[in-house]
């Protein structure tokens, strides 16, 4: 059996799964120290575990590291070493960061020789002595985490790898993050993401150790995995080195859980909460990734974040009648006190759904003053907005299945324009925890190939092999590894036929 846990801002949810069968579920309040909430959730589901069954793995999705970045709390002193000279000196690392965040992490930056051209030639050879000097300086400045970013490291990782090894040799104990392991082409954004990772390594190690201790304190002898934002898992040891991959794992787990609960692998997931609606697209059971820069705590990044489209509309959205306005204000989680049908005095979208006959919750008599035609007009407007979310996420005009999760799904009728089917899976309330418990691991490669050196087929085959090897390295059973995504984009204004290839391989966790 496996346990999936989702630590959200308000609740810590847990589920116990036996294969594909949900054995137990619970919702506990999230606690400031994170671990006591996790302990209560673990205890609650373990009470329902049959005596003879054993727990083989615990999978956890958490927003803890995202919050550390947003609140500038518990961040380590970090350095960024760019392999680039004599190129890219005009814009040094951390150039467009918010001042407070840069100050919070120390903001030490170093430019040294190295890096590659788009076609794999060296910009200049590495100068090992220069890197050793920088490593010493970092240690003297009390740096704990180092991001190493080489120009065109997505084409050739060798300089970053060698520089990382030199830093570890020179200043043992420094935690090194290579940008090529984090992000894609676009040096500022990739370097930013690597630096965010570097400043999270201490808080990650402490938190993950505390959670491991909590698990073993209950007598569980099961490995711990953390959810990544691409919908795969990483083991606890890897997670302690790559905490940045947990950012935005919440929406990802919700989409993965919705896919699991509905059996739909390709479609649109719409999570309608109290205040907002988040939509995402499922491709082969995984969230489609954003193709543009994503802002994390005021910092532009370009690593594999889910492509989420959000609007300010939920079950707690406040409705004004004259003139008619729905949201963006919301009573949020206070809906059950302030909504009309719950005896409050704020008119919300949920009240409208009750009057329109879409939902039977609270006391419909308390909303008796609302005309049915008005309620239907509001519901029709909500319907249009949700249909727009679905449409914005589609890649073509063909109808697709739409999976509704979140408490606000009662606002929507059983048919939506552009949807081939509208599904509302059972247990959608714990979709995130279920999404966390889906035991798959993956490997992703993004590289630029110059097709004057290799054929297109050779380039694709080499990227496929590398992605597969990474998935196996992450713990996948080789027999189950499959390629779930291939993207090939030629570089414009460049008649030399260079192409950017992105490939993702996924497999089931071995030994489970």
């Amino acid at each position, binding site marked *: 059996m496996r346990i999936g846990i989702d630590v959200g801002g308000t609740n810590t949810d847990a589920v116990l799964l036996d294969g594909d069968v949900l054995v137990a579920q619970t919702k506990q309040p999230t606690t400031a120290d994170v671990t006591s909430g996790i302990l209560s959730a673990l205890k609650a589901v373990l009470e329902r575990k049959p005596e003879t069954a054993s727990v083989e793995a615990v999978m956890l999705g958490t927003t803890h590291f995202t919050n550390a970045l947003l609140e500038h709390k518990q961040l380590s002193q970090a350095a960024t070493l760019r392999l*680039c000279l*004599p*190129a*890219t*000196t*005009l*814009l040094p690392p951390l*150039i*467009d960061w918010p001042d407070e965040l840069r100050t919070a992490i120390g903001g030490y930056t170093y430019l040294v020789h190295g*890096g590659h*051209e*788009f076609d794999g*030639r060296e*910009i200049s050879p590495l100068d090992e002595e220069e890197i050793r000097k920088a490593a010493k300086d970092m240690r003297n400045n009390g740096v704990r985490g180092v991001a190493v970013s080489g*120009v*065109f490291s*997505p084409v050739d990782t060798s300089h970053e790898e060698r520089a990382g090894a030199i830093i570890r040799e020179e200043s043992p104990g420094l935690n090194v993050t290579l940008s090529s392991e984090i992000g894609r*082409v*676009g*040096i*500022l954004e990739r370097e930013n993401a690597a630096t965010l990772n570097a400043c999270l390594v201490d808080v990650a190690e402490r938190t993950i150790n505390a959670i491991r201790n909590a698990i073993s304190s209950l007598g569980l002898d099961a490995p711990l995995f953390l959810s990544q934002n691409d919908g795969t898992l990483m083991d606890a040891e890897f997670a302690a080195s790559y905490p940045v991959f947990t950012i935005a794992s919440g929406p990802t787990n919700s989409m993965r859980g919705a896919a699991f609960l509905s059996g739909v692998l390709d479609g649109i997931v719409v999570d309608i909460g109290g205040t907002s609606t988040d939509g995402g697209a499922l491709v082969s059971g995984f969230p489609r990734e954003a*193709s*543009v820069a994503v802002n994390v705590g005021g910092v532009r990044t370009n690593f594999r974040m889910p492509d989420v489209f959000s609007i300010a509309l939920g079950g707690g959205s406040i409705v004004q009648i004259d003139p008619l306005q729905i949201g963006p204000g919301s009573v949020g989680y206070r809906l059950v006190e302030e909504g009309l049908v719950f005896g409050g005095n704020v008119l919300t979208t949920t009240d409208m759904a009750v009057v329109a006959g879409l939902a039977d919750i609270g006391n419909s008599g308390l909303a008796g003053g609302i005309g049915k035609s008005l309620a239907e007009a509001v519901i029709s407007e909500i319907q249009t907005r949700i249909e727009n979310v679905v*449409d*914005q*996420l*589609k*890649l*073509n*005009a063909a109808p697709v299945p739409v999976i509704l999760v979140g408490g606000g799904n009662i606002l929507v009728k059983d048919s939506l324009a552009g949807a081939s089917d509208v599904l509302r899976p059972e247990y959608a309330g714990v979709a995130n925890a279920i999404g966390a418990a889906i035991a798959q691991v993956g490997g992703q490669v993004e590289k630029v190939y110059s097709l004057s050196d290799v054929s297109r087929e050779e380039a694709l085959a080499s990227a496929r092999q590398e992605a597969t090897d990474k998935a196996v390295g992450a713990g996948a059973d080789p027999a189950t590894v499959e390629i779930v995504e291939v993207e090939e984009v*030629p*570089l*414009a*204004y*460049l*008649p*030399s*036929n*260079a192409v*950017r290839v992105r490939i993702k391989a996924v497999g089931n966790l071995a030994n489970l």
Partner: protein
Amino acid sequence: MWKVTEQDLESIAIGAGILGTGGGGNPYVGMLRARQMIREFGPVKVLSSDELNSDDRIICVGGIGAPTVGIEKMRDKQAYYAMRAIEDYTGLKATALVSNEIGGSNSLEPLIPAAISGLPVVDADGMGRAFPQYHLKTYFVYGAPYAPLALADEKGNTMIIPEAISAHWVERMARAVTIQMGCVACYATTPMNAEQIRNTAVLDTLTLAKDLGDAVKRAREQHEDPIAGILDTHPGKVLFQGKIVDLERRTTQGFARGKVTIEGIGGYADDHMEIEFQNENLIASISGDLVCIVPDLICIVDTERAEPITTELLRYGFRVTVLGFPAPDLWTTPEGLAVAGPRAFGYEVDYTPIVI
């Protein structure tokens, strides 16, 4: 005379995105670079063409290469090195700089050597929009010299093309060298004089880019319609409004070619617009009738915020407004159309000016 300050850069970038007609690359890195140089060296003076004197010598600088490479190996001071190289070769010192292309990231390139050297930039460019190649400039159509040309990389390599039989040959040779230089070179042309600028440049375009960006920003802040703000600033019209429903792409010879189909919304509900692009948007038709043809400007912006959308970022489902603007007069003469009319891009149609 006015001065480009740090605060103006965001506006110029938005305006340059609109005038980029789908091409010219993302101006984000260019904006950061210009900001960094203005922070270090101070604001850059902008001269209008009638403020130039007869002894002024104006060098046009621009970036050449691939936008995707430029976001990885970001440009440094290549344009400054190229400017110094052409000065040394010709023995003529620049007194001002001018842009090659107001559309996209190249609009900001002259600000970098200008800030470093303390020289002003002239309020003009050689396209009034974006085009993908060196030879597609009004400067060369009307006789300003396309050679000698200096190219520079970030490492200290420079190269001069002393002579060529046409501007198109300069493009071919410069492109080949640029690839060897690692694809983010800059070039600088032989200095032009004031008369050449007045006769061959599209004038007042840096101001236009800034005004367009200011109008968009002001409308967004005041929750007004930014598209109306654009049209109040620069004469043009809404060609179409709708949703992207189909996208075809193919890449040949380094050019991202394709076609985007937009299904009408609101007043356009029963129609479809098709736009053919080759890096830039070139031909727009509504239900088969041509409504806007290169060199007139076809700009796709998102309907809500008027954020310009480059051809590589087009995607199904986007709500877009298509704006059309008349081409600068210099492009609509027989000489101009021979270089940048529809036939120059392989479309067997005649240019008919947009009706606004």
